[in-house]
């Protein structure tokens, strides 16, 4: 059977991609670069630089950055602890991490709201212990808590895979040659886990930057991320041209971040490990 004959099999998929991936994106670009009357305009593509939208964009970037950072800070020690412990059953670990994703995503965020709200579970516990109460609901901090909660597995999985794959021999060799704990960490462990952290950051940063559901629930509808602005342009204000213009801007930022962090994750270190 010739290659050509087998390649025919991908024709349905190619048609699907053209019909439902490429053309829809062209529609977004078309909407973004025209006004309601259908005339060409740059107004909506440049709308991201309006003060209101710029503020939403900057807040989105700031929260996504904070979320990614916190996820790294939580995940890395987990990976190190599991690496030094005898318990290395990766299947069980994966199991524990993936299982929560099977509870409906919106219900889980509502449960977070219940935990951290003013009369919530955590404040009940704190007042029983006579500790000051936690007042973060309806603030950006609450949104970060929700996003860290929801996206932590996306960071844990690649970081864990990467750290557990570092051969113990290299670490032993480093120690034998006189490196202290800190030196082993900065010269061996950290450089060899950068690819995992990189792919983790892409997987956390992009969804948290484009999020609107978590912001709606935990931000009390008052805090506007770029995702919220776009959603409202489509469902409330019905200004589809503006919504599309902002979507194009969002896409550009997503592409920039995947290029910055994702580029490295194909793993220049991988050859070394294998």
């Amino acid at each position, binding site marked *: *059977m010739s*290659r050509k004959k*087998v*390649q*025919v*099999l*991908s*024709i*349905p*998929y*190619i048609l*699907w*991609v053209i019909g*439902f*991936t490429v*053309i*829809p*994106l062209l*529609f*977004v670009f078309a909407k973004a670069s025209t006004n309601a009357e259908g005339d060409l305009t740059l107004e909506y593509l440049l709308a991201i630089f309006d003060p209101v939208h710029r503020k939403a964009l900057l807040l989105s970037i700031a929260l996504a950055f904070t979320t990614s950072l916190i996820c790294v800070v939580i995940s890395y*020690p987990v990976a190190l*602890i599991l690496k030094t*412990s005898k318990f290395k059953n990766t*299947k069980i670990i994966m*199991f*524990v991490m993936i*299982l*929560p*994703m*099977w*509870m*409906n995503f*919106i*219900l*889980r*965020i*509502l*449960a*977070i709201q*219940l*935990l951290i709200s003013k*009369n*919530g579970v955590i404040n009940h516990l704190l007042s029983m212990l006579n500790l000051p109460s936690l007042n973060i609901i309806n603030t950006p901090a609450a949104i970060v808590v929700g996003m860290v*909660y929801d996206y*932590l*597995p996306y960071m844990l999985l690649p970081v864990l895979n990467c750290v*557990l*794959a570092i051969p113990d021999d290299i670490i032993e060799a480093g120690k034998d040659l006189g490196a202290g704990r800190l030196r082993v960490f900065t010269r061996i462990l950290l450089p060899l886990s950068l690819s995992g952290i990189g792919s983790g950051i892409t997987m956390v940063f*992009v*969804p948290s930057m*484009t999020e*609107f*559901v978590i912001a709606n*629930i935990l931000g009390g509808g008052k805090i506007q991320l770029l*995702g919220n602005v776009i959603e409202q342009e489509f469902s409330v204000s019905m200004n589809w041209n503006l919504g*599309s213009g902002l*979507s194009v801007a969002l*896409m550009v930022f*997503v592409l920039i971040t*995947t290029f910055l962090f994702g580029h490295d994750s194909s793993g220049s270190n991988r050859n070394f490990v294998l």
Partner: protein
Amino acid sequence: MIRRALGKIYLGIVVLFMYAPIIVLIVLSFNSSKSRVVWGGFTLKWYRTLFESDAIISAFGTTLTLAFLSAAIASVIGLAASLGIYTMRKRNYRIMLFFTNIPLVNADIVTGIALMLWFVRFLELGITSVLIAHITFNIPYVILCILPKLETIDIRQFEAARDLGATGLHAFTRILLPDLVPGIMAGFFMAVTMSMDDFVITYFTKGPGVNTLSTLIYGEIRKGIKPEMYALSSILFLIVLITLLIVYISGRTNNNKSEPADY
């Protein structure tokens, strides 16, 4: 010693953080008060009334239908596509992978909006538009599960079968397909999971009157979530927990010897 103990405490805190909301939801499913904040005593009544609440049952039906139908169609298209892509030369191979990655990298909100803008031109938004949308974001997961499997297969066995006179289809079903089954299954279940978990893309591409569990819950946030919803989610969670445990345990007894050091 102390380091070990501290490590264990740290892992415990992380696991608690991941599971606290789930415990809350399961507790709520047994709360006889309708309020989310007040504990009104233990009850099983939401598990009984669950089967009488039509909105939830019909949304659950829609969610399951969408998940399995979109995953099945995506698996067929994705399998055929993977075989084709596998035989392509480098440049076309790269182009195909680039387009396959678009729905994965792109923000859900943009994918949803793009499909919606396109659908309103020729299709009334309804269940069909959601199905097409789900197939669209599911195919890449299928391809990314099957393609790596294909790369590891020894294609000479297939060629030998052909040389010995097997037809292309026969050689495929007897030689290639059995080796591909794990990849196809992985892709299928990944697609089911993604479809069931999706909210954003469904939200933008659905028509009025069509509801999955996610969109139903989202619509109820202001009015208050029906307690039956917690009951259903707890049941689903339990089913998945048991299924995964069975898969894990059976996998462990099978692979006991064949898997030296996982990495």
